[in-house]
């Protein structure tokens, strides 16, 4: 029995990496579907999120030097759908009692990241095609914004001033940090929202 368990465990460990299969030996190659219609369709999600992002970018006046400043801009922005959805996410987090020193830390747990992105995706569903709900579509646009912001300093990309120092930032970590904490109101923002 012990041997069986050991063999099963070994097989499981070898093949259990999520999404990674032992296909090298069994994969049967087939032509991909690269029809013009399909290729056109897969641009639908980048286009939908790109429009939302661009409207937001222009409405808040571009990227700021800190995420807190960007949250202040979202508070002020009464025009874009994007800011409206972000504020709707903040509304549910006003009683969390997060301390200032905890806000903006990285990394966060996979579970926390997934929960935050899931809730936001549900909120954005009304504004993008149904099949485009994943916030992963935002990653390249946030990256584009951070690169554009970096150009102002002659750098490859901007690391916002409230991102932790003890991390080697690059894509895609920076976008994920940005999205997670953009969707989490800073204690100063919480206070402002409570007062209003």
């Amino acid at each position, binding site marked *: 029995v012990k041997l069986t368990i050991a063999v099963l465990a070994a097989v499981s460990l070898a093949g259990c990496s*999520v999404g990674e299969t032992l296909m090298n030996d069994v*994969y049967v190659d087939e032509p*991909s579907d690269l029809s013009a219609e399909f290729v056109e369709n897969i641009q639908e999600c*980048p286009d939908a999120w790109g429009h939302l992002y661009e409207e937001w970018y222009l409405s808040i006046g571009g990227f700021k030097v800190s995420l807190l400043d960007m949250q202040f801009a979202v508070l002020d922005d009464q025009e874009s759908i994007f800011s409206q959805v972000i504020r709707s996410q903040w509304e549910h987090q006003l009683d969390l009692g997060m301390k200032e020193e905890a806000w903006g830390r990285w990394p966060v747990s996979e579970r926390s990241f*997934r929960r935050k992105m899931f809730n936001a995706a549900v909120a954005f569903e009304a504004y993008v095609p149904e099949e485009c709900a994943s916030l992963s579509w935002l990653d*390249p*646009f946030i990256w*584009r914004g951070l690169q554009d912001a970096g150009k102002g300093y002659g750098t490859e990309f*901007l690391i916002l001033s409230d991102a932790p120092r003890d991390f080697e930032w690059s*894509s895609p970590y920076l976008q994920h940090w940005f999205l997670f904490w953009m969707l989490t109101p800073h204690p100063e923002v919480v206070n402002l929202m409570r007062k209003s």
Partner: protein
Amino acid sequence: LNKRLSAVLGSFANGAVTAAMAYAFGQAQSRSSSTVGSTAGSGADPVEVPDAIHVEESGFPTAADAAKAAGARYGQQGVDSRREVQLGIVRLGEDNFGYLTPGWGPEGSTIVDFGPLLSAYRGAGHSPHAWMHGHFDHNLYFSANDFPLVWDRPGATYLVNRRLEVRRLTNQHLQNAAKNVPAHYPGGLRGVQMYYHSQGLPGDRL
């Protein structure tokens, strides 16, 4: 500021210096509400299509072998130039695969519309068997945004990452991954994309 800049530069390793400099300036100017950057865009960035399209190399017994050869040839170039390589793998006969002249995304872009390159391939008389692209950033796996290429579809898509690993993703990988998606997530592709947003999926390393 100089003291702070030195401290921040010292805290970053391996080529993150330019970003660290931006960080330092960000630190210095925080709470100023100043706006940085001046451009905005929408949608995917267009691929740069080469003037002439050829079968660059052929004679590979499988598409995977052709992908490995293309990855070895263009992977580092993509990392160095911070541009996503995009190319088609073609089947030229029984046990004979090759790869076509690549196109390149704009510098720094992580979302590239490869449609114009595919059209150019067709215009040159080539019908790709599979598609391959590169990740110059630290995303070593297939991102959630790559999943639509093979979701509920035949064939495979290939990736070369900044470690020059060549990977293959198929619908089977996605269907296996879908089994781990919690029941409260949407079904189908978007649920898988949402659940694997952070890490993506590794597929097979070739």
